[in-house]
């Protein structure tokens, strides 16, 4: 081992200063010769003869120097450089081939590198916190109710924190917006609501000031806030005396105690938080802290060193069992589930990204097959050159090495251009990426990605270079040298290899096309599905009321009544309504309910429905049909009997074969969780969680009976969005000049944005499939046109013997079709496997969709026939005289 290292070291040294070593050896040999000559003279030879004899005795000086050079230096690298120089010359000599091969490869490598940079940033890069492997998320789960993971309540969190021995710390995080006033225009700031241990757990230091202390989380503590560097430098004007001064959040003063660096982000939050406040100070969540029921708090923790997640899970199982027996009303049936934080953050994006990476890998494979094909063709026409080399004494390994050097040069060229493409591609991707993709800010071409690209191009070049090199080195010298033109005949093996490559390309292209076709069809179904309401011409806007100022529900109702009344007097804005939440764009509120007089049949009979609070005009504005009964009207106010409207799905699921109208449901938004409401009507189903999810049971309540501290407006108007937005702003500020209007947008655009991830992957996979199709078509074109060239003689003879032009055409096209069918035969089962892998990404379409399969097969046959038709036409025009004379 040691000897090996010292050898290499001394070789490296010699290689780095070759001239010196060679010169030294030359003078050593010179001395040797002189001594030999001296001795010969001493023995009585004349000087001339003595010198000659000495030379003979020593051996060929040049040879010796050569051997010495090889022994001392690094011959492998030297011959590679020599080969590489030669390869560059060869590539220069055929610029067409070089351009096609390098570009094909650059596209493949560029696309792979770009996608890999996304995969790396989102899936592989460790989270930007100290010891990220120790970080886990903790959820409550209820298998009986089919709830895989949800938040917990603050009292439960306190028990977890106090009773466990496996976490060095546990903390919680929630997120919403508060209104910042008193510093310029009123604005909504993204707020992280945390328990004080949040920062210590993540082991982050503030830019200035301090993080929260445990005392800051106690009831009655003075309200404090930590602001982000961005907010400090922006809205707060980089105020140097910001620490200790106060800012108003929801009209309540908070003392600024720290500034977090711009690079810091809290986990699970995709947008950049601007302020952090202790949970106890939050106007919304703070009021829920005493309730043990409820699942709204996101918990995460840091495992103690050496504690595995399984150990922690076992401990949390024990704790949740204790909690279930201690507080059965709130905790029966609930367990705790721990998930590594990285996995939780990445979520279901993982599969989509891996599918894309797989797809782009297939594109590279096709590109490699294509280049291998080109190289095989070239190797055939170069067989004479190789035969000459072999005849002059080059060993098989040496020939393979030289041919591989050429492909490595080709691969590196492709790699370099590919990396340039990747830089551009990552930029293009970043603008395409859906906003809700986690960790999207970390995406870029960094060193790790560059290494990936280089390794990839090296592997690719060996992959496409090895087969042709092996074939070329095996060629029979005798026959190659004897062949006149070097192209009249071609080994059957080589031709078979080329046909196999072409068929494989078609099979791979088929896989990609089927996957892309399925995604495309499912996407078009997704975007054309009826959401149950009519989004056309609807503008949505959000107004949030600061809770410290608007603390009473009466104020909320008064505000919304006033706003709607004002808006409805404006021309073009009569169709205005309020809803919280607005379907799809706002998320959903899922609440339990009871049917008065009908106890649940069993434990597993979960009575859950999505809850919406709306003003009476909502159904008219959104065109949600009334199926029976009546809608809300202006008389459904707090003093009137509590009422509700249910969706068709709720009626069918919980009131089969009976009329629900007149029956009562018990439910409500916390803290009024138990209000008995009479069902007064049934309305149509709405896809309120996402376009892709089937409509579930829903229950509506009149906003006047269940108001919120804010209003989400939906306005149906043929006026432009900006006019509507300006009118809304004007009306809102007439009521309260400190209220910001946020998230103004057209509902169709917002629905569009809700499927941005699906659009992103469909677009990319489609792009890759088109690349694959083009590459496969050129592959077929190459094989067929080369085969026509090789068969010029044969075709000439056939024509001379009376074969018709159309028979020749048919012959060539048959060859094309044979290749295509072989490709399809392999491709169809592979495509079916692939489509099952992406099965869960499909909407409204089966993974075995025969229409997609047939369409793809037809496209492939059509495109490859076209690709074969061009050389076939050339074959048709072969002049028998010319062809025969050619020999």
């Amino acid at each position: 081992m040691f000897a090996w290292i010292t050898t290499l070291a001394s070789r490296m040294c010699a290689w780095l200063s070759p001239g010196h070593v060679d010169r030294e050896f030359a003078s050593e040999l010179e001395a040797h010769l002189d001594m030999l000559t001296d001795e010969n003279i001493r023995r009585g030879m004349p000087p001339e003869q003595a010198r000659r004899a000495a030379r003979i005795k020593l051996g060929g000086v040049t040879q010796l120097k050569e051997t010495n050079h090889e022994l001392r230096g690094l011959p492998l690298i030297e011959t590679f450089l020599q080969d590489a120089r030669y390869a560059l010359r060869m590539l220069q000599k055929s610029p067409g081939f070089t351009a096609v091969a390098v570009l094909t490869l650059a596209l493949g490598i560029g696309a792979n590198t770009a996608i890999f940079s996304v995969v790396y940033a989102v899936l592989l890069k460790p989270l930007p916190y100290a010891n990220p492997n120790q970080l886990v998320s903790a959820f409550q789960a209820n298998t009986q109710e089919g709830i895989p993971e949800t938040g917990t309540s603050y009292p439960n969190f306190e028990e977890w924190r106090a009773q466990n021995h496996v976490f060095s710390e546990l903390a919680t995080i929630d997120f919403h917006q508060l209104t910042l006033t008193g510093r310029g225009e009123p604005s909504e700031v993204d707020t992280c609501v945390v328990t004080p241990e949040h920062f210590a757990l993540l082991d982050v230091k503030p830019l200035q000031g301090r993080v929260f202390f445990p005392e800051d989380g106690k009831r009655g503590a003075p309200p404090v806030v930590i602001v982000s560097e961005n907010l400090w430098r922006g809205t707060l004007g980089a105020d140097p005396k910001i620490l200790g001064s106060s800012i108003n959040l929801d009209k309540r003063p908070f003392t600024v105690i720290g500034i977090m660096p711009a690079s810091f982000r809290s986990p699970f939050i995709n947008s950049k938080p601007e302020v952090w406040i202790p949970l106890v100070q939050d106007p919304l969540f703070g009021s829920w802290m005493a309730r043990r029921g409820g699942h709204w708090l996101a918990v995460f923790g840091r495992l103690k060193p050496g504690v595995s997640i399984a150990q922690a899970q076992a401990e949390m199982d024990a704790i949740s069992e204790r909690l279930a027996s201690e507080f059965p009303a709130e905790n029966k049936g609930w367990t705790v589930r721990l998930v590594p934080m990285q996995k939780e953050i990445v979520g279901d994006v993982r599969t989509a990204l891996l599918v894309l990476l797989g797809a782009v890998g297939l594109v590279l494979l096709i590109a490699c097959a294509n280049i291998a094909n080109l190289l095989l063709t070239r190797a055939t026409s170069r067989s004479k050159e190789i035969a000459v080399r072999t005849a002059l004494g080059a060993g098989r390994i040496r020939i393979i090495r030289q041919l591989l050097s050429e492909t490595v040069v080709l691969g590196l060229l492709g790699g370099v251009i590919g990396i340039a493409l990747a830089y551009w591609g990552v930029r293009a991707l970043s603008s395409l990426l859906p906003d809700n993709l986690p960790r999207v800010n970390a995406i870029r071409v960094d060193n790790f990605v560059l290494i990936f690209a280089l390794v990839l191009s090296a592997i690719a070049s060996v992959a496409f270079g090895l087969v042709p090199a092996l074939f070329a080195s095996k060629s029979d010298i005798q026959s190659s040298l004897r062949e006149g033109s070097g192209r009249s005949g071609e080994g059957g093996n080589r031709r078979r290899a080329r046909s196999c490559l072409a068929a494989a390309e078609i099979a791979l292209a088929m896989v990609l096309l089927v996957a892309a076709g399925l995604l495309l069809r499912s996407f078009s179904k997704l975007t054309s599905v009826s959401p149950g309401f009519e989004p056309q011409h609807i503008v949505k806007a959000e107004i949030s009321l600061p809770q410290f100022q608007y603390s009473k529900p009466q104020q909320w109702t008064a505000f919304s009544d006033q706003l709607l009344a004002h808006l409805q007097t404006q021309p073009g804005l009569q169709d205005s309504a309020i809803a919280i939440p607005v379907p799809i764009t706002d998320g959903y509120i899922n609440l339990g309910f009871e049917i008065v007089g009908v106890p649940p049949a069993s434990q597993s009979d979960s009575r859950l429905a999505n809850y919406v609070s709306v003003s009476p005009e909502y159904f008219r504005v959104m065109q949600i049909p009334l199926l029976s009964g009546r809608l809300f009207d202006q008389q459904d106010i707090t003093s009137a009997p509590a009422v509700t409207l249910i969706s068709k799905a709720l009626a069918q699921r919980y009131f089969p074969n009976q009329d629900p109208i007149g029956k009562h449901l018990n439910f409500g938004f916390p803290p009024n969780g138990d209000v008995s409401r009479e069902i007064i009507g049934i309305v149509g189903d709405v896809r309120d969680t996402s376009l892709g999810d089937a409509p579930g049971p829903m229950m509506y309540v009149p906003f006047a009976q269940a108001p919120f501290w804010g209003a989400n407006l939906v306005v149906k108007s043929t006026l432009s969005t900006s006019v509507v937005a300006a009118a809304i702003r004007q009306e809102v500020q007439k009521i309260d000049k400190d209220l910001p209007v946020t998230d103004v947008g057209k509902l169709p655009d917002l629905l569009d944005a809700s499927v941005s991830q699906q659009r992103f992957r469909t677009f990319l996979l489609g792009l890759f499939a088109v690349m694959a199709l083009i590459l496969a078509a050129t592959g077929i074109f190459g094989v067929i046109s080369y085969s026509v060239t090789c068969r010029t003689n044969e075709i000439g003879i056939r024509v001379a013997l009376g074969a018709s032009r159309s028979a020749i055409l048919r012959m060539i096209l048959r060859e094309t079709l044979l290749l295509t069918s072989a490709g399809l035969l392999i491709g169809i089962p592979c495509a079916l496997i692939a489509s099952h892998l992406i099965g869960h990404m499909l909407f409204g379409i089966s993974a075995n969709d025969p229409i997609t399969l047939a369409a793809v097969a037809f496209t492939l046959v059509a495109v490859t026939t076209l690709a074969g038709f061009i050389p076939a036409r050339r074959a048709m025009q072969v002049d028998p005289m010319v062809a025969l004379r050619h020999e």
Partner: protein
Amino acid sequence: MSADKSDILQGTLDLMVLKTLDVMGPVHGYGIARRIEQISEEALQINQGTIYASLVRLMQRRWISGAWGTSDNNRKAKFYSITKAGRKQLNAEAENWERISTVIGRVLRLADRG
């Protein structure tokens, strides 16, 4: 030429060079070549140049070291001497060599009798 054969020859020559340096102390390439020819009573007629490959290999393994100096008749030449590691290697190899040659000799005698 097959690889095995040249390997044996290389190893043999290396061993002879090491032994020569061990016995003679610092000596130049020509001196080593002469010495090997003399010891073998001119039976081993080598191209003297071939010992240089051997010297390079031994240098690279740090079994010998080399330094420029002046020869008896006032010529500049590179003098080689065996290192500590080289002496260790020589002992091990020499033992190995003797064992092998004894075994081979025994086998050949056996074959003669058979």
